[in-house]
């Protein structure tokens, strides 16, 4: 515990809640969560089950059925698979009401299934290159790959956990990686397969309706494990991180992105979007299930993943560009490596 603390203090504390910052998350009223201190999983405390329940105990720890039901119910409109991004977009757009109106109109027009960068998910597609730039630069550096090469990830085995419709898996495959995409929602996997299958460059992606825990059971190992915008939807983030770590080869890499539990994220994403503007049903997001960067670093640390780099995403309404920055106040992405002991 001590060590963890010291490390955390080295971070820029975004929400200065010294001494109490575990509480909101780890000692919350949520029935599925265990105190951080014990960090052991009591399988019976999980209220959730996987789709095909042959492994009730260990495979279900990270699934949160309520969350998955949200994704499944609205999987027909791709929008919701990505509503999390939209959130990011909203919270970053908040400086411009003009943009807000656009986002709203996108929400309305999202009843159609469109895997299309010009469709209602355009903001998401627009953000995608920015996070891929982060992944590219960190993984190239870590694995000693040539960043000037068109397919720098050739020879790397990457799993995209919570792949949704494959928005991230496809570019990774084009960059040369051998990609496995997994998602707990069957419909997402179907959409992802359909889309990736139409391009020979991405048709090699192996999509699977399963969870990280199941993959661990199958003893799958990957050079890099990526889970973007997933951890805030799982029942037990600490356990989820353990699975991610177990999927990673020794010396392998992890990339995780999520939304910060900061006042700014709360104000923009939840109060504005759910209550004032009523864009999204109340309760779509549980603020308490967001992780701060410090907490993420800590639980990763406990799963023997050392976070080496972290960046935030910011949207500049003037230039219309997303960029990586040191502002991890709302959306952030972390790169870590699995240590060898």
């Amino acid at each position, binding site marked *: 515990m001590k*060590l963890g603390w*010291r*490390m955390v203090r*080295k*971070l*820029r504390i975004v929400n200065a809640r010294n001494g109490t910052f575990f509480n909101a998350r780890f000692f919350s009223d949520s029935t599925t969560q265990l105190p951080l201190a014990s960090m052991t999983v009591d399988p019976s405390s999980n209220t959730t089950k996987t789709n095909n329940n042959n492994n009730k105990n260990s495979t279900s720890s990270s699934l949160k059925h309520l969350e998955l039901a949200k994704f499944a119910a609205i*999987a027909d409109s791709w929008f919701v698979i990505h509503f999390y991004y939209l959130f990011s977009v909203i919270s970053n757009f908040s400086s411009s009401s003009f943009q807000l109106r*656009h986002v709203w*109109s*996108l929400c309305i*027009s999202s009843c*159609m*299934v*469109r*895997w*299309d*960068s*010009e*469709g209602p998910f*355009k*903001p998401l597609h*627009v953000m*995608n*290159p*920015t996070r*891929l*730039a982060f992944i*590219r*630069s960190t993984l190239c550096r870590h694995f000693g790959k040539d*960043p*000037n*090469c*068109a397919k720098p990830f050739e020879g790397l085995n990457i799993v995209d956990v919570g792949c949704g419709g494959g928005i991230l898996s*496809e*570019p990774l*495959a*084009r*960059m040369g990686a051998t990609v496995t995409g997994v998602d707990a929602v069957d*419909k997402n996997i*179907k*959409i992802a397969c*359909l*889309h990736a*299958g*139409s*391009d*020979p460059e991405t048709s090699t992606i192996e999509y699977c309706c399963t969870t990280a825990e199941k993959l661990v059971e199958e003893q799958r190992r990957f050079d890099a494990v990526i889970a973007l915008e997933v951890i805030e939807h799982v029942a037990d983030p600490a356990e989820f991180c353990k699975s991610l770590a177990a999927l990673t080869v020794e010396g392998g890499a992890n990339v995780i992105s999520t939304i910060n539990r900061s006042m700014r994220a709360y104000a923009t994403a939840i109060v504005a979007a759910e209550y004032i503007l009523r864009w999204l049903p109340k309760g779509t997001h549980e603020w308490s299930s967001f992780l701060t960067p410090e907490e993420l*670093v800590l639980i990763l*640390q406990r799963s023997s993943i050392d*976070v*080496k*780099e*972290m*960046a935030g995403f910011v949207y500049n309404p003037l*230039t219309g*560009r*997303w*960029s*990586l*920055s040191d502002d991890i106040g709302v959306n952030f992405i972390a790169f870590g490596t699995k240590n060898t002991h």
Partner: protein
Amino acid sequence: MNRIVTKRFSVNVYELSITRKNFCSNAASRVSSSSSGQSSNEHEVKQNFTDDGHQYDVAIVGGGVVGMALACSLAHLPLTKHLKVAIIDSNPALVKRNCINKEDPPDPRVSTVTPATISFFKDIGAWQYIQQHRHAYFGKMQVWDYTGLGYTRYNARDVNKEVLGCVVENKVLHSSLLSCIENTDFRKTIYPSKLTSMALLPSSSSMGVDSTLSTTALFTKGRLAKLELSDGKSLYAKLVVGADGGKSRVRELAGFKTTGWNYSQNAVICTVEHTEENRCAWQRFLPAGPIALLPIGDRFSNIVWTMNPNVSSDCKTMNEEEFVKTVNHALDYGYGSHPKSSSSGGRDMFSWLRGDVTISADECFEVPPKVIKLASDRMVFPLSLKHANDYVSKHVVLIGDAAHTVHPLAGQGVNLGFEDSHALSRVIAEGVAVGSDIGEVSLLRKYEAERKPANIAMMALLEVFQRAYSVDFGPLNILRAAAFNGAHYISPLKKSIISYASGEQKMPLPLPFFS
């Protein structure tokens, strides 16, 4: 156990911009006319998948100078050189190399390339081939008008440069780019044919998740554009580049609208000979349009003369001797007197505005070297202005004259096209870097956002120019003369004009009226 978490703020090269307009635009992916209709049977699609031979990353329609420059740039950039590229053009020069004989007089079709274009060519490794052929750098330029009220001389040394530009025959530009590509291991295929039709099926049509096979086919088609050629061949590409000139078929098939008009003006072009070498670019504004005399090396110059259509046919048919006389007249005392070289008046008038003095401000008006002989056929082209309202849609992008045709007045046309090629290849490389589908509109928009404002600014400037000279009206003439004198004597203005015309600066400040 003191682990330090480093936060790196490496940033941004690959972000995309959001173009507001497109948030709610659903017009971008459209179905275009296709002779084969849209009967997309899966069988055909499957075949194409296995038959990799006809599937490309990029299909460049039009292997003119701009299309070839794009191919060359793609072949050169580390992130794009692996791309499989098809070049479609029926021009025999693409397959049967015309040997360029240095002894022949220069071709009348030439381009004035700017320093920005020269450095682009150097970057992609094509300039070395140009240096093996005839080309003429020039470091001085004189612009004046028939009223005799003012003139401007530009000197490269005003901006600490060696040259203002270089005049190169189009066939030299073209063959240099071709040699450049041939000396790389770039995977390109040349189709010596013409594009007749193009099918782009939108992947975005609404559909249920558990739809049937025909949807797969739709998706498949949605990822690739199908091109049909005049020789019956067909091919598929993720990205179709329309580099097929002012009458672009790609632009038409993709349904891009254009804005523009015909000037009721023709350009007469030809090569002429002097008694000694010309080293300066000359442009004189006559009542019906400008006449330009550009050095092209040895004792040759190129003439681009804008005039009324009926006069142009006279110019083409009159005998050689008479034509030479008409040209010399137009470049000397024709239509009006020489501007006064005793520059003291002008200098005093603008002295309060001048910063440091430019070298050329002290240069006197000169009369261009006399033409002694016609050295080529005379060619006549009608002039028009055309600008595509959009440059990109799903799978399709326009570059060069296909996107914008300008008045040849300032010799900027081809340079804008080269900047398009340069920008597009960079944007494709950025897309490849982050694993984007290179036919994706959100990626292509980045190219459009970069090039459209720049092209429009240049077109607007040329338009103002062209209009200012299409009127012969006392006060306006004086204003123009003031503009000339202003440009000649006010050095900050002069410097900014030079760097804009060199393709190095985005906008001349203060704004364009002077040039």
